[in-house]
């Protein structure tokens, strides 16, 4: 069993590396930040009208006191209207995870989302956006549709430093008795280009977040992360990051997450 698990993790990592190696597709903007690439927050910029992008990544999960796990993330994004895009994603995983005792392969829930940007940043007014995602119950033992509504504000502070506030409301339509049906959360993200005025292809990102635990008895979970996005092709970007829980609920294991991803537009 353990051997099968190791093989599965190795397969996921291999797929991730292959995806990373498909160099030179099209410029995903390293400054246009998306959730999971590599951290949890979004900035308030939508994809361009008629732009399509594939964003994918592989994560190594290191939950405390459990086996090592792996996760693959793949998301397709399409700018179907001005300042608005659609996204469809999957997150299959295997091995140990912080939020469940299961460690077998899980296809994960399929997500479908819409992102809309209301305005660009002007004068002292931040850019505002909203993102709504639905998670279909395609994963192991999943039931009911989960929703997440995310409000996003992005604003420059100083000349090149930018803050991104994400306010989340996660809603479970079929929560277990011991679980919360509404889970709020907030993330403060930060980004800054690295290398100005001599290099223009790298962005540093960092975040601190707090969210309620999914279990009713537990308190808040505080997490943090840092990462970097690097343009590697005319329209492609790789991302690397590390995230961890600084304080967690009693029943959820804290975990360290190492993320590597690749995105391209076309």
């Amino acid at each position, binding site marked *: 069993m353990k051997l099968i698990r190791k093989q599965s993790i190795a397969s996921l990592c291999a797929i991730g590396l292959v995806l990373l190696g498909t160099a030179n597709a*099209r*410029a995903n*903007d390293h*400054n246009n930040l998306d959730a999971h690439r590599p951290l949890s927050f979004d900035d308030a*910029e*939508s*994809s*361009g*009208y*008629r*732009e399509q992008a594939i964003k994918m990544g592989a994560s190594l999960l290191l939950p405390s006191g459990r086996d090592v796990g792996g996760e693959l993330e793949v998301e397709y994004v399409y*700018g179907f209207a*001005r*300042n608005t895009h659609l996204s469809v994603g999957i997150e299959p995983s295997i091995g140990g995870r912080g939020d469940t005792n299961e460690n077998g392969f899980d296809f994960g829930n399929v997500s479908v989302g819409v992102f809309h*940007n209301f*305005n*660009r*940043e*002007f*004068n002292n*007014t931040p*850019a505002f956006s909203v993102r709504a995602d639905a998670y279909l119950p395609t994963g192991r033992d999943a039931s009911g549709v989960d929703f997440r509504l995310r409000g996003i504000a992005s604003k*420059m502070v100083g*000349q*090149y430093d930018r803050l991104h506030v994400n306010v989340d409301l996660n809603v479970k339509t079929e929560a277990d008795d011991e679980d919360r049906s509404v889970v709020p959360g907030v993330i403060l993200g930060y980004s800054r*280009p690295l290398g*100005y*005025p*001599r*290099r*223009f*292809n790298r962005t540093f990102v960092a975040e601190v977040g707090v969210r309620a635990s999914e279990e009713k008895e537990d308190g808040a979970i505080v997490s943090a992360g840092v990462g970097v996005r690097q*343009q590697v*092709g*005319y*329209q492609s970007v790789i991302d690397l990051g590390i995230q961890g829980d600084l304080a967690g609920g009693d029943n959820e294991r804290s975990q360290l997450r190492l993320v590597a991803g690749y995105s391209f*537009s*076309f």
Partner: protein
Amino acid sequence: MKSQKQFIYASLLLISGLLFARMVVAQPTHDNHEHHQQHNQHNGGNGEHNRMENPAANARTLPPLPTNLPSWINNKDRNHIYRKRGRYNDDIYKIQSLARDLNAVAVGHAMAYEDLVTGKAHKLETDTFDRINWVLKNPPRFMPDEGNISPTFGRKYGVLEQVFEWTHILHAQTIDVLASPKLTDAQKEAEIERLYQFYVENVPYAITGLPMNMGYLDSQPYSKAFRQKYPKINGLFWGYHWLQGAMYDTLYGKTLEQQRTAYVPVGKRYHEVELYRTDRPFMPMFAELSPRFAARFPHISNVFDNLHMLHDMVNDILASDWMTEKQKEEQIKRAIWMVSAEAHKGKKPGDFDPNDSLHDHRFMPGMPGMGMMPEGLHHGDMHEGHGSHDSNGMQEDKNAPNSENHTGH
């Protein structure tokens, strides 16, 4: 006796000063006064309006915003639109040295604008110049996003940034097509036309393809401020425009190998001479630098010349310390409107109504616009049969890289 001499010297100084100020500030074209009055009428102005519209009469009196501006000129939307898809996209990177030079141009524009709006204008000729020059000598591998290099400028002038961005994309994609080894010459010509159609149909803030009278655009109350205050940085801007003009005939009708070879002397001249020239009387124009391309695609050439003129107008507005921030914002909106496709909708090349300066685009259909440059020299072969232009003829650049291709019309 001594006080009499002092009085005479003081009077001479005063008269010289007044004459010099008039020469430097006003520099109207022969019919400038008439043009501005007429332009004002176009915008629905009254008599008071007319007096304000005449920059030659009072260099510190600004023309008001037209009342018929479209709503998009005030939009607060991001409105990012992805470029037209095509198998030629990014083929410019097959000519690496040109691709990298163009990447550096984007940085040069953005850094100068950011410094101008963040209180660093006094360092433009020194620190900013050195910073930009380093990038020009060490061009980036990928095209940077100008909006990210100049975020303060973008927050203040977001629509302008969109106007610039979209026409820069047209620049980039037409060059990608010319550099594409996958397309035949006929396919390239057809695709360039499609790119133009995509440009004018998909963005509200497209620039007109009509041959605007550059003399009129360059005789606003703020005109020439930038080139006078910051000659070195202005030289860089016009150097970029020289490259952007010269590159079309450098690539036009050639194989990839020929293009690579052709860019070697052009790139050398760009880096060694054109970027550092401060003696140009006017910005480089498309038809003098790429006469073959300009003759084949006059409307596209005009878009680029008008874009470059808009750059000059914005530079001049930002460099004019005597304007308030609000006045600068208004004049930038007005400048966008003056070169926008929407302002000239329904008009055609060859239109010249002496009562309407805004619609002074008097070159014939199919002829690349050469502008009406107040400080240039007559360019005989381009203007053959157009005697009315002689007082405003274009500057002559006998060293233009593609002058051997200059076919005339």
